[in-house]
């Protein structure tokens, strides 16, 4: 599979912010366990740990702006929208299950990774579909 130059930049940037996120999660967990910091410090740590998520969204936005291959961009945007649809469906169902006290509370921050997973899965499905319909000549 070949990647466009914009996709290469996206992968490099996304790896960097993901690495920062993992490091901050580890630091956050370690500090919380080792030092039992006060609420204000915990709040600041939670805020700082979430910043790479915003960075990831910025990286995604940059990619969409920089991707010059419109067919590839169209497929990505379509995958994102389907991923969003899956996220809204799942969270709506879970929300009503919580309302009925059938399931317990779930961490809200899981919404982003769930969207990423649904987006990635959808993009994979669309890529397979396109490969099957591909008629090289």
């Amino acid at each position: 599979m070949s990647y466009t130059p914009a996709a290469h930049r996206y992968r490099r940037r996304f790896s960097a912010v993901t690495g920062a996120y993992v490091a901050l999660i580890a630091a956050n967990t370690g500090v919380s366990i080792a030092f039992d910091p006060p609420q204000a410090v915990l709040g600041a740590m939670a805020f700082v740990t979430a910043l790479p998520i915003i960075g990831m969204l910025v990286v995604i936005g940059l990619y969409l702006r920089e991707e010059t291959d419109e067919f590839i961009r169209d497929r990505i945007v379509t995958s994102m929208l389907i991923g969003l649809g899956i996220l809204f469906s799942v969270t709506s169902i879970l929300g009503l299950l919580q309302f009925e006290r059938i399931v317990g509370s779930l961490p809200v921050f899981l919404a982003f990774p769930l969207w990423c997973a649904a987006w990635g899965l959808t993009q994979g499905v669309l890529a397979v579909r396109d490969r099957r319909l591909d008629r090289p000549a």
Partner: protein
Amino acid sequence: MKNHLRSLRAERGWSQQELADRLEVSRQSVNAIETGRYDPSLPLAFRIADLFERAIEEIFVNPATPAA
């Protein structure tokens, strides 16, 4: 959208990759346009028309025009 891209490309003896390189898009894009799975934007349609030295409507079939 139906189009004559495949035959125009064949007339020149270009592969999909060669056409993609000339248009600065991926081969997947060329394939998707040729098979009618993707309608190019107006700027890309103009680039294609310029490359083949044809008018856009000579390459892309107007979907509003009844089939002959």
